[in-house]
Structure formats: structure tokens, C-alpha cells
């Protein structure tokens, strides 16, 4: 499980997060939602030990992320950031193979190759595997990054806006695939997501944040109420009951 205790972070004078306490059980999909600047990405990055917290402790699967061995942690926890800038020129397959680094230190075993194949297939990238990343569209590249996280084959996967750059079709497919990863591969997925309706449709838990604080934690049905959403997003929101999941409507309310 993921356990945050009194975690706080400031950038200079700007208070970004906390102090927050949060317990996320193993398994399932947790969606972090909230307006811009609510501290969602900051919290995710701190859990993924890419950013040091000013105060508090973070434990993932019993390991303190600031003191645990980085290599050990990389076998337990994978994180995908929102922006990925690098000049390295790699094919999709090479990128996804890098996800195996914590297990193989670069010398791919047959097990690694199988894991890479699985990840490629899982995100329907098999046909694109020989292409270079700079020859792909933004959405295809986004899927390649997610495939790399899956190839890392960790119990926990943290994804910062995995739906970035994806069109309607691919956004739905991506969420369906993450759902499958949680259900079939027994992963614990935590993601930052902007479209509250995607969170409602696919997540098991929604964590709503504003101004660096956690305001609500609950199942989609518990969080998806007009009062809660209007409060969190500071915008009038109506909730319609769709047969499969509640649906937030906020585009034009008269």
C-alpha cells in the first residue's frame, strides 16, 4: 500500500502541498483530481521519489521512498511524468526495453524480452515497435511511455496525466487498458487525470484535491455529487446518473 504521513512541499514562497495524510490500499485504480495547481502532480512526484518532500514520510509497499535503495524501489514502483524531454533517438521497442533496466541492468534476459513483448501488445504497439519515437504522433508516443512503465512490471504504477495528447478513441482505449492492468495483472495504478468523467468511469477511488490539500476521498459514487464537485472545482457542476457511472456536466449550465 501507499502511505503518506504529514507530507508537505513548498516551491520557494509558494505553498504547493500539504501537509497531507493518505492511505491507498493495494490494487485498483486511484484517480487524483482537482483544479490546476491543486498539488496533484507534486504529490504523485513525491510518491515516486522524483521530488523530495520538505516534511513527512512516504512509504510504498513498506519502503520509505527517500531511504530505500533506488534500484530496489524501481522494481516496485514505476512513475511516468507528464512531460518527457530527451534527445536520445530510440525506437519504440528500445524505449520499452529500457523499462526492464531495474531487472536486467541493460542485459535483456528472455524473461525481459517476453515482458517487453507483452507491454507492446498490451498497448497495441507491436506494429509500431521498429519506429523511432520522433516518427510517431503525440498520442502514439504517449502510449509508448505507458508501455515502458508496464514493461517495468512493478506492483505500483504512477501516471501523471496518461491521457495527454490522446484523442477520444485512444483515451478510452488507454483507460480500458489501465483497467485491464489493474484487474488482470493485479497492478496498483495511481493517476492524475483532468477529465472527471474518465475518473468516474474507470477508477475505484477518487482523491479530490484543492490548494495542496486532500478534500475528499471515496468511490466515484461518493465523490461524484454536485456539492462535492462544485466545491472542488469552484464551478457549478450537475451530476447525471448514467447506467454505468455518474456523469458530471459542467459545460453550459443555465
Amino acid at each position, binding site marked *: 500500500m501507499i502511505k503518506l504521513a504529514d507530507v508537505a512541499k513548498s516551491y520557494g514562497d509558494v505553498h504547493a502541498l500539504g501537509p497531507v495524510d493518505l492511505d491507498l490500499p493495494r490494487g485498483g485504480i486511484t484517480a487524483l483530481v482537482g483544479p490546476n495547481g491543486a498539488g496533484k502532480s507534486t504529490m504523485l512526484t513525491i510518491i*515516486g*521519489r*522524483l521530488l523530495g518532500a520538505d516534511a513527512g514520510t512516504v512509504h510504498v509497499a513498506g519502503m520509505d521512498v527517500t531511504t530505500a535503495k*533506488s*534500484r*530496489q*524501489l*524501481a*522494481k516496485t514502483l*514505476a*512513475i*511516468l*511524468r507528464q512531460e*518527457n*524531454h*530527451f*534527445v*536520445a*533517438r*530510440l*525506437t519504440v521497442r*528500445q524505449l520499452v526495453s*529500457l*523499462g526492464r*533496466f*531495474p531487472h536486467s*541492468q*541493460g*542485459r535483456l534476459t528472455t524473461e525481459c524480452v517476453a515482458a517487453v513483448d507483452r507491454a507492446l501488445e498490451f*498497448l*497495441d*504497439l507491436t*506494429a*509500431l515497435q*521498429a*519506429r*523511432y519515437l520522433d*516518427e510517431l*504522433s503525440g*498520442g*502514439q508516443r504517449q*502510449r509508448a511511455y505507458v508501455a515502458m512503465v508496464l514493461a*517495468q512490471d512493478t506492483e505500483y504504477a504512477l501516471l501523471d496525466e496518461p491521457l495527454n495528447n490522446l*484523442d*477520444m*478513441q*485512444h483515451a*478510452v*482505449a488507454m483507460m*480500458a*487498458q489501465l483497467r485491464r492492468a489493474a484487474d488482470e495483472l493485479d497492478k496498483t495504478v495511481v493517476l492524475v487525470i483532468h477529465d472527471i468523467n474518465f475518473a468516474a468511469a474507470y477508477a475505484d477511488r477518487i482523491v479530490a484535491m484543492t490548494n495542496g490539500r486532500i478534500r475528499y476521498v471515496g468511490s466515484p459514487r461518493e465523490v461524484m455529487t454536485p456539492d462535492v464537485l462544485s466545491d472542488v472545482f469552484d464551478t457549478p457542476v450537475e451530476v447525471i446518473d448514467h447506467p454505468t457511472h455518474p456523469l458530471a456536466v459542467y459545460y453550459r449550465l443555465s
Partner: protein
Amino acid sequence: MTTTNSQPMVQSPAASDLSRGPAIPGPVPAHPPATVGRYWLRLTIVLLVAVLAAVLIVTYDNPAEPGSRGFWTIVNNRLTSVATITIVGICHGVATVAFHSVTNNRILTPSILGFDALYRAVQTALVFFLGAGAVAATNTVGHVVAQSLLMIAFATALYGWLFSGKRASLHVLLLVGVVLGMGFGSLATFMQRLLTPSEFDILTARLFATMSQSDSTYLPIGFAAVVGVGFVLWRRRHVLDVVSMGREVATGLGVRYQREVMLVLVMVAVLISVSTSLTGPMTFFGFLVAMLTYQLVGTSSHQWTLPMVAALSVATLLSAYFVLRHVFYAQGLISVIIELVGGLAFLVYLLRKGLR
């Protein structure tokens, strides 16, 4: 249906089947990645060019009678040149590729950032503060090693600081590098002005060895350094692949990023000080061969780029040396012409691709 997406997946019958996820038809790639077979072919050709140039340099137009003592003396001299060029070429090429990877850019090179100007400044400062007598009296292997260590410590502290912490913009780094390079250069020139003529003479002999007249006593040290550094970098080629993905991805994959970057910067400082001590500074050569290597190899995976860049820089330098010295009798122009070509390539790259 939206038409903003440039992928042709709308036409795909499978794409409408949401339960299957996005089935990408996957047209044949416009630029198929260089296959392994083609890589070996290219590497072989480059190596052949290098060997051919080396053989030509050694044998071409030897004025002495074949088999006579003078003949072998000349061959020996030329072999020293070939060895020097080989070491210098490998130093520049490998240092640049490794540097590109840890700094996550393809514009800056150790030379552009003033590594070799720093070397000159350190050398001059030693003569300046300790006096030529002390330097000449201790002109031993241990002394050279001590000097190199000083240079490495300096470079690592300075550039490690520059590249650690929050990533500065490439514009700032380029500017800082150029200014530092000029600053070190001016500092060295200033101290040289204040030296006595004899001290200056000793210093010049040390600083500006040319490819044809380099001091062969440094060759074994240079050779050992290149082999050592090459071994370390080759062992860490997979780590370099991960480090070249940037701090966040590398940390996420369990690599101790800061430590690896520092290690590579030390290696780069070793290579550049070896090469500068052998033949003096070459600003754009590393950039030139690194760019050619990326073009030839296609991928930036280090198990392919490192051997290629080493072979390519040796082949380039040897060919240039042969053509200019033995065909055009213009050996003093070698570095000038390489700098001209490299500098032009650098400008073209900047103008076409921008600071990326």
C-alpha cells in the same frame, strides 16, 4: 469524426472496434531504422578507411631508401603521429557522445564549454606560480598525472555544479560555456604575457604540441587513459542509455543519476585533458564526428554509438592528416580546416534544428 489526428486509423476497419483498443495499421516506416547488418557494414567501411589512411601516412612518399636506417626512422616518426591521432580522435569522439548523453543535449560539447581552455589555464597557472624550473625538474609521469588530476578536479567541480540542480536552459549553458572558455583562455594568455621568455618557451612546448611533433613520452599515459576510460564507459553503456533519458526517467529506473553524471564528467575531463595535452584544443571536431555518428547509426543506444564514434573520429582525423600533409603539404592547416568544417556544420545544425 475528428480530422485533427494525422494518423490514418480512421480508415482502419479494426479501429472502430473499441473493445480491441486502438489497432494501428502501422504503415511501413518512412525511414527504416538501420539494421544491425548495415551497422556492421558501415563500421567495417569506417575502420577500413582508418586503416588505409594510417597505412598511407606511414608509407606514402618516404624520401629515404626503403630498408635503410633513415627509412625506419621516418616510419617510426610517422607511426608516433598515427598513434597520437588515434588517441586524440577517440578522446574527442567518445568524450562528446558521453557528454551529449549526460547533459541531454546535442549542441554542447566539452570543447565548446571550455574544457580545453581550462586545461590551458591550469597548465599556465602551474608554470606561472611554481616557476618553469619546478615544472621542468619534475617533468615525469607522476607530474603529468598530478596535473591531469588537478584539471579533472577543477572540471568536475565546475561543470558538475553547472549541470546539477535545476536544469538551466540550453541558451544559458551555451553562453556560460563560451564565456568561461574565453575567460580561461584570456587568463592563460595574460599569465603567459607575464612569464619570462624561457618559462614561456617551456610552457609553449608543453601546450602546443602538434600532431606530427607530439612528445612520445606522453603517448603511453594517453593510451592508458583512453583504454581505462573506454573500458569504464563501455561497461556502463546501458547505464548511459538510461542516463541519457534525463534525471526523472533515470531515477525512476533506479539509476543514481547525480553519481552517474559526475562519473561521466570525470571521464570526459580525463579524455579532453589527454587530447589537449597531446595536440592542443579542437573546438568543433567532437561535435562534427558525433553528428556524423548519429546520422550513421540511427539510434542513440550507446552500444552502437560508442564504437562507431571512436572509429569515425580516428578515420576522419587520419584521412584529413594524410590529405593535408602528404597531398597538399599543408599540415599546419589540419586543425584549421577541421574547425572550419566542424564550425560550419555546427552553425548549419543550429540554424536548422534550433537549440534542442
